[in-house]
């Protein structure tokens, strides 16, 4: 057992697990536990099948760059859609443009659409996030484990990271359920947009400042931008633009 390899894989895969957990919690807040768990389970089965079938060959065969770009783009499109809606609603712009009856009808339609579409949205989001992060953990384990000749130590480091992050997820569950729905959707929009921008950027060749630390910077930037856009959209502020 090599303690250095265990610690290195724990730290590296821990970051990926935290990202996967964030996406999972975002998917859960959109469509509930069931589709989020299903998306996660299907992604895990796909990853296990990939590793079982390819073994170390996965390092050479898997087009991680293209995969990152595609998953990033999908998450970015989902995230911007939620962010756009959240900004419009919180600024009151939707309610001002729509009369009460139309607004009520829209809410009803959204509720119907929610029950039909959010399941698949939550499934796709959890599936994409877990598949991408899971594949990155596999890369970390295989490369560090193979390079150091300590595959068991690498697997142990990743397993400990998984348990720690999963426990954090269980602890975070209750506080998240107390956040108002509209605010939660806004947060989900920001998170998905930030992760989507980061992954898509990595996929097309952007070298991010301090690597994964840039995700935190992007979250802050998307939050500030959406607050600025809400301010701009508030009645009275944006009459000229309207």
């Amino acid at each position, binding site marked *: 057992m090599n303690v250095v390899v265990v610690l290195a894989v724990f730290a590296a895969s821990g970051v990926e697990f935290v990202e996967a957990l964030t996406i999972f919690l975002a998917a859960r807040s959109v469509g509930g536990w069931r589709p989020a768990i299903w998306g996660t389970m299907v992604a895990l089965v796909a990853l296990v099948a990939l590793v079982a079938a390819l073994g170390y060959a996965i390092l050479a065969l898997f087009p991680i760059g293209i995969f990152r770009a595609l998953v990033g783009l999908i998450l970015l499109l989902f995230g*911007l859609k939620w962010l756009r809606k959240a900004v419009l609603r919180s600024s009151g*712009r939707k309610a001002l443009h729509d009369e009460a009856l139309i607004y009520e009808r829209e809410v009803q339609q959204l509720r119907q659409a929610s029950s039909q579409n959010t399941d698949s949205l939550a499934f796709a989001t959890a599936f994409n996030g877990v598949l991408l992060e899971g594949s990155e953990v596999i890369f970390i384990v295989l490369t560090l484990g193979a390079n150091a000749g300590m595959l068991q130590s690498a697997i142990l480091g990743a397993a400990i990271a998984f348990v720690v992050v999963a426990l954090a997820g269980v602890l975070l569950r209750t506080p998240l359920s107390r956040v108002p729905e509209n605010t939660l959707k806004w947060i989900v929009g920001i998170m998905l947009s930030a992760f989507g921008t980061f992954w898509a950027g990595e996929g097309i060749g*952007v070298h991010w*400042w301090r690597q994964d630390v*840039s995700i935190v910077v992007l979250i802050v930037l998307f939050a500030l931008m959406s607050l600025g856009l809400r301010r701009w959209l508030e009645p009275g502020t944006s009459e000229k633009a309207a």
Partner: protein
Amino acid sequence: MRKLWDVIVDLVYEDGFQFLGPIVALAIVWLVARVTQTSWLGVLLFALIALSLYLSLRRELRG
């Protein structure tokens, strides 16, 4: 010039195509990344995505 700009924005953000903006942003950054590697590519990507969201909301305001 402004009219041409409005036409382009309308084309990009026509119903059903409003999410073309982020795709265009990624394509631009991908092209720049092929030519030169600068540490500001991430900033450029975020700025273009922010611009696409702003244009989408502006179009929503104009109806």
